[in-house]
């Protein structure tokens, strides 16, 4: 059986051929291809056997390079399926958005090609079941994202792009060393096999070293405090589509890797490092929230809020309990949906006002641009974790997991983490409310003539936003849709820990 996403990825190699004459047809082509990928992703959902979600399904497994035991092994299970769909959806929405709102800088053909390569890398990362293959896909996203930031970014794009690629490459190097350390000692590169063994046959010291290296490697991507400093710059300077994919998908590759590779293949190492991971996660939560309070730029603020949200995800992972890991996976998806939406909105606001500076945008957006402001309010409220919306469950479950961490971990430490995480959640509410009070409410700026000219959202913007809003509501009101898929494979991961 061929893996459907692999077909999609191969199909995406086609558009590099130079056969589309003008930008409009190019945009339509991008929508078409990514839409087809989304359909394939959705059909994967229908073909997926939900009663057996812990098994890797729709898989393809071929020998690639026998001398180093490398296999071309792809497949999806309950952990990766939601992320695959999220990736396909966000890429599709990015193309829809770009069709009418191309970033300044032209060269749309290149942008389309880069976004498609990016999609291959992201999908590949989530479906790869071989460590080396995973690493290859993990690296595939770097250069296209670098180019996207470098060519279509804001004023300081060069520095931001360089910082992004240097940081993430350092992470990749450490990650590679860590993964190989475990793989060589365990004698296999196959991720399902590694997960099944639960680290059997790998000595305690090797597990600690391996997990630590992988934690640092994925931590750069996630991003984990204090390795996050590339993120605000990259998010702020990147064009809208770049920020959306960066926040919506690329960050998830880090946490996904932790759940998929690091924790199952080195459970002993995970147990030893979990407290440190939890501590860094909580620092990230509080730090991200405090940093947000101090920001004056809309995109920068959202970027720092990502640090905080991913802190919750990391905290969930650090608990090493099924509840915590479910929270992490849930938080991943929720953050992808909500922050993706926020960045779309930030991009639209920046287009209209010509600035992302909160003070210069001024207040009263609900009066001048009621629809845009309503969307922004919705996204902010979802992001701060209002019950009933997607953001709530991830944070709540993560804190719940921290209240009762894995038996091998120090409970007082995690309860403290939980308390500080709670404070972080309150701070999150504080800065989003501050954001709303500053720009949606209040008085419009004095030069109201200009403010009145704020255009209503276009059809294409609606098309990009509405699916995200709908999914945020769906997942928030009915979290079982997602938890049902993830919980079984998560339990399977814990065969060795429980």
């Amino acid at each position, binding site marked *: 059986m061929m893996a459907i996403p692999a077909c999609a990825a191969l199909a995406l190699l086609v558009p590099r051929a130079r056969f589309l004459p003008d930008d409009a047809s190019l945009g339509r082509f991008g929508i078409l291809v990514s839409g087809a990928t989304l359909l394939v992703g959705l059909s994967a959902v229908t073909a997926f056997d939900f009663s057996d979600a812990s098994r890797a399904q729709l898989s393809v497994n071929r020998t*690639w*390079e*026998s*001398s*180093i035991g*490398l296999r071309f092994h792809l497949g999806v299970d309950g952990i990766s399926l939601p992320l695959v769909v999220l990736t396909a959806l966000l890429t599709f929405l990015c193309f829809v958005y770009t069709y009418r709102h191309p970033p300044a800088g032209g060269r749309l053909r290149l942008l389309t090609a880069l976004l498609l*390569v990016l999609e291959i*890398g992201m999908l590949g990362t989530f479906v790869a079941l071989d460590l*080396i293959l995973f*690493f*290859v896909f993990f*690296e*595939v996203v*770097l*250069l296209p994202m*670098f180019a996207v930031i*470098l060519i279509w970014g804001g004023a300081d794009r060069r520095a931001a792009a*360089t910082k992004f*690629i*240097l940081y993430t*490459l*350092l992470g*990749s*190097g*450490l990650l*590679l*060393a860590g993964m*190989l*350390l475990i793989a*060589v000692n365990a004698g296999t590169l196959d991720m399902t096999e590694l997960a099944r063994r639960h680290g059997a046959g790998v000595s305690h010291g090797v597990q600690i*070293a391996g997990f630590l*290296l992988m934690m640092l490697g994925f931590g750069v991507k996630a991003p984990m405090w204090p390795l996050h400093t590339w993120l605000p710059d990259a998010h702020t300077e990147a064009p809208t589509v770049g920020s959306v994919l960066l926040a919506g998908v690329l960050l998830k590759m880090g946490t996904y890797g932790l759940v998929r590779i690091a924790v199952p293949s080195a459970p002993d190492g995970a147990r030893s490092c979990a407290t440190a991971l939890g501590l860094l996660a909580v620092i990230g939560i509080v730090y991200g929230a405090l940093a947000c309070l101090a920001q004056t730029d809309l995109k920068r603020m959202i970027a720092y809020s990502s640090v905080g949200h991913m802190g919750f995800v990391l905290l969930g992972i650090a608990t090493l309990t099924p509840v915590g890991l479910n929270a992490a996976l849930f938080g991943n998806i929720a953050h992808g949906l909500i922050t993706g939406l926020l960045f779309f909105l930030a991009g639209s606001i920046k287009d209209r006002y010509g600035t992302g500076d909160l003070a210069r945008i001024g207040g009263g957006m609900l009066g001048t641009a009621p629809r845009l402001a309503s969307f922004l309010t919705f996204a902010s409220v979802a992001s701060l974790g209002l019950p009933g919306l997607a953001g709530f469950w991830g944070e709540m479950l993560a804190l719940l997991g921290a209240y009762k961490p894995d038996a091998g971990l120090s409970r007082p430490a995690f309860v403290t983490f939980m308390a500080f995480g709670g404070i972080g959640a309150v701070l999150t509410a504080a800065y989003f409310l501050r954001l709303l009070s500053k720009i949606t409410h209040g008085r419009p700026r004095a030069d109201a003539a200009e403010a009145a000219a704020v255009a209503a959202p276009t059809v294409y913007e609606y098309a990009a936003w509405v699916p995200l809003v709908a999914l945020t509501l769906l997942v928030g009101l009915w979290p079982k849709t997602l938890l049902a898929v993830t919980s079984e494979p998560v339990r399977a991961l814990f065969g060795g820990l429980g």
Partner: protein
Amino acid sequence: MIQGIDYAAIAPPLLCAVAAVLVLLADAFDVPRRWLGAVTCLFLGGALVAVGVLAAGDRRATFCVPSGLRGGGPRSCSYVADDFTLLFQGLVLAAAIIVVLLSLRTIVEDDLPAGEYHFLLLSAIVGALALVAARDLVTLVVALETLSLPVFALVGLRRRDGAAAEAALKLFLVSVVSTAVMLFGISLLYGVTGAMHLDRLSAGLRSVPSDLKPVAAVGAVLVLAGFAFKVAAVPFHFWAPDVYQGAPLPVAAFLSVVSKAAGFAGLAIIAGLGMPSLGHVWGPVIAVLAAATMTLGNLMALRQRTAIRLLAWSSVAQSGYMLAPLAVGERRLPEAVAATVAYVALYAVMNLGAFAVVVGVQKAGSPHVPLDGFRGLARRDPVSGTALAFFLICLAGLPPGVMGLFAKVVVFRAAVAGNVTWLAVVMAVNTVLGLYYYLAWAARVFAASASDEGTTRPGLAVRAAIAATGAGALVLSVAPQLVLSAVAAAT
């Protein structure tokens, strides 16, 4: 007693030697310069075919110790054409053909004596071919010198250039010193074991009396030092940048690929076949050398402003990655040797490609192209520009340069498997340093051009070289297993 010689086994170096003499004679009779290059290419191609034929057949060995003199020892042969040898001979010959292609225009523009140039190049290639097949210490040294001596002259061939003379002298002095050191090491090893053939040496070192062990260890380290010079490892690296800069560009390419590949082959042969039992001695030494080499090379490369010096320092850094797998010592040695060989093979393709583009961009008689000279190359000359960017990204080891990524993966894997994880972490940091300058260069290629001066169009031969290396890089990026499997089978 007359020894039989298996002429088929030694066909590749023999063909090159014949070609060298032919070219020298032809030059004496005023044959046009273009023909000399053609003859050289023809013979190198012939040698390559011979390698292919040999690879299809059985393992051959010649210059063996006659059975009457063996005394119950192993069947020691001085020249062995096994898969490992043939792999390297193929690599050396293919790279040499590219170097000859690159040379054609340089010879005309720099007014180099064509006959001597091709003669010296072929002689050095004979040395490289013999080196990778040598299985005793004397043959190794003689082959190494056959490889080195013509290179001094090649470097200094631009006679009116002071920098070239200085470079040649520098190379000569460092080389002589390192040969002396190596010979001293060999004499110690011989004194301890009484053996010159590697198989006997290996057996002898396993049964060294304990009071002689320190002597054997010192001998081993000194022998390695000789090869460390050849591959430009720290602290024997400092000839590299000046020599690359002073030498004609194709000669620099030769040094950084052919000469280095032969040096690594020699290192792998002597460490893997000759003294595996001393792995606990030379393993850590190589580990430290590798870490120092890659770090220093990368740090210095960050500061370079001309393409050739950047390539020089980056090739020092790349030597560090190639050394790293050998740091494992005796544990999992075949795997480590395979990793080194794979890296050398992949590196040869990408580095030659980068050199080819630099040769194409370089103008005759003008100073070396600064990195800013590559601005807008992708617009002026899309093929060269894209190819250069691709080679650089391969060297940095990022997709779409999958071949570079796989090269790094096998090296990491070997280092981690041999329990030198700290070296893997050093490599991880170094990869980032390397990426910075490769990427900065690649970004310049696509940047808007500062001036609209027309560049020189690379000639047909250089274009062919770029196309060949580019095609190689593309194929290996799609299917890196080609090299990896071949290497795994050969070691």
